[in-house]
Each structure stands twice: as structure tokens, then as C-alpha cells.
């Protein structure tokens, strides 16, 4: 009986554990279907011509996210025509962070003139699979047929406070490397950010 119980429980333990770990560079990413601020649902499968995606977990309330808003718009404007559009996802639970509610997201997207989808991770099912731990947190994906390969994970650049003082545009360099058929260097960076708000 005891062994039976363990064999029953063990796979579940493993699944929870591997989910909490999230992606590392080289992993295959899964698609999602999340509600955009315009009311439509968005999946990466909706972009047959894309060569990949700049998936950014970000939100309204976090000062680091706010500091990067203009730079995220610039990334989308630069790389959408080259086949790498930005898809922004708000991973926070709006009940814990009311500024990150769906209505507030609509307002912010309109105010800033977001050129990319701004999706709500309803039920918070997507961010743990990716392993996003803070906002903003970037996952650069390369598409090959139906495969989505993780090419870069981390920060947008090396100066959140002052765009003019940036010396390494991590994401921009990573997309350029992938476009040139190379591996991004670095392909993983860390950054200070706001924790993702989740009920315990």
C-alpha cells in the first residue's frame, strides 16, 4: 500500500518541481492563449510569418517596468518588421496588485501607445512554466516550424535608470545574433525587479 501511494504521488511531485524551475536557454517553449487589452485572445500560433518572439513579463505598477516601457516599444518597432515582435504579459494577480488589473492594463496600453499585445496571465498559469521571477523579465524565442526555442533569458539592458548610460543592449544584441544565425552572448542575465504577485 505504501509503495502504491508513493508511485502515485511521485509523478505529481516531479511535475510541480520541474514547473517551478522554468526554462533554461535551449529549452522548447510552449505557446499560450491569453487575453489582450483589445479583448482578443493572442497565441504565438497567430503569427505564421514570425521568426521568433520577444516575450516580456512586465506590468503597470513596477517602477522597473515603467522605466523600460519606452525601450520595450522601441524593441517592438525595430524587430517586428524583422520577424521578432514583442508580446508583453502581465503575470501579477490583480487582486493583490490592483494597479495591474485588466482595465488598468487597457488604460496604460492606450496612454503609452503600446504597439504590441499586452496580455493578462489569467489564473497565473503561464509565468511559472516560463520561470519568470520578476518584472520585467525577457524570454527571447526562436521559431522553427512549430518549435519555439529559448535563446535568451534576462534583462533588457544593463542600466534600468538611464537609457543613455546603457553599455550593453542585451535583448537587442541577442535578437541580432539570432537573426545572424548565431548564439546570443550573453544568453542569460540577471536584473533587479519586482516580485510577481501571487497568493500563497
Amino acid at each position: 500500500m505504501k509503495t502504491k501511494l508513493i508511485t502515485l504521488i511521485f509523478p505529481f511531485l516531479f511535475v510541480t518541481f520541474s514547473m517551478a524551475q522554468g526554462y533554461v536557454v535551449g529549452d522548447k517553449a510552449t505557446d499560450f492563449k491569453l487575453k489582450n487589452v483589445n479583448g482578443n485572445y493572442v497565441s504565438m500560433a497567430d503569427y505564421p510569418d514570425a521568426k521568433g518572439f520577444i516575450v516580456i513579463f512586465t506590468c503597470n505598477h513596477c517602477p522597473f517596468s515603467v522605466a523600460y516601457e519606452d525601450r520595450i516599444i522601441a524593441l517592438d518597432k525595430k524587430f517586428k518588421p524583422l520577424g521578432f515582435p514583442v508580446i508583453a504579459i502581465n503575470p501579477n494577480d490583480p487582486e493583490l496588485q490592483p494597479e495591474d488589473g485588466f482595465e488598468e492594463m487597457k488604460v496604460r496600453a492606450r496612454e503609452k501607445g503600446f504597439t504590441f499585445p499586452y496580455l493578462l496571465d489569467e489564473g497565473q498559469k503561464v509565468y511559472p512554466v516560463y520561470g519568470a521571477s520578476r518584472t520585467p523579465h525577457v524570454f527571447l524565442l526562436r521559431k522553427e516550424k512549430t518549435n519555439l526555442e529559448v535563446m535568451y533569458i534576462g534583462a533588457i539592458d544593463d542600466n534600468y535608470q538611464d537609457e543613455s548610460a546603457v553599455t550593453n543592449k542585451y535583448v537587442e544584441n541577442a535578437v541580432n545574433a539570432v537573426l545572424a544565425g548565431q548564439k546570443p552572448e550573453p544568453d542569460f542575465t540577471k536584473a533587479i525587479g519586482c516580485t510577481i504577485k501571487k497568493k500563497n
Partner: protein
Amino acid sequence: MFIVLCLNMIRVVLLLSLLWPLNVFSQNIVVVNFEQLQPRLQINNDTTYIVNFWATWCQPCIKEMPAFEQIHQEYKSKKVKLLLVSLDFVKHIESRLIPFIEKFRLSPEIIVLNDPDANAWIEKVSPEWSGALPATLIFNKNFRGFYEQEFDYTTLKHIVELNIIK
């Protein structure tokens, strides 16, 4: 004579009003880069150091702050030292950080870490740290623990009690 005196008085008042905010600022908040902070994370002696990385915009950080304040009060006479490292933007020190410190009457030492190339130093605080706030380092010559989590008083006290060198 009277006019000259008046003018001088005005000058003194003006000078004082200019210096006053500067004075408050310099007395309370030191701004450092990581190179300046790093030696304080590597002290290796009998004192147990609790270094908390936080910011006024970080809700879980604000929530756990009373626990740090309480531990600070309780262990004042023991070999325990608290350092609150704020990651608030420098431009927000006077508008957000100082009012927060005053409102919650925080008594531990508080410094601002202003070093925007975080990728260069997060690993040096702890390889386990993703960069999310709050994060806390607790260490002495026998022990070193890193916690990317929100603390409550009981958990924090438990770790301190287990590891403090008496």
C-alpha cells in the same frame, strides 16, 4: 543700520533653508555602488549580520519591514547588526524613501545601492538570487544563508536564534 541687519537676517534664513534639506539628506542616507557595499557582505566575525535588499515600491518588502524593525530592537544589545539596502532610485530618496523611513520610524542603518548594472553584482550577493525583491542575507563566521522570500517575524527570529554566536 537696521536695514543692513534685516538683510543679514534674511541671508542667514535663506542659507539655513537651503542647507536644511541637504543636512537631513546627508545625515540619514548614504548612497553606494556595489564595490562599496561588497566588503560589508564579506565580514567574517562573531557578529551576525542581517542584510535586507528592499525598496519602498516593493509591497512584500514593506510588509516584512516591521519584522526587521522588531528583530533590530530585540537584539540591540547582542552581536546582531541590521543593514537595510534600499534599491529605490536616487531621484526618489527625498520624495519616497525618507518619508517612508520617518513614517515607519525605521531604526536600523539604511543605505541606498545605486548600481544599475545589476547583472554584474546580483551573483556576487548570492548565486541563488534571481534579482527579485525582497532578498535577505544572514551571515556570521559560522553561517551564511540567503533568502529570496518575504519574512515574517517568527521565521526570521528562528533563523537568528539558531545561528547567533553567544
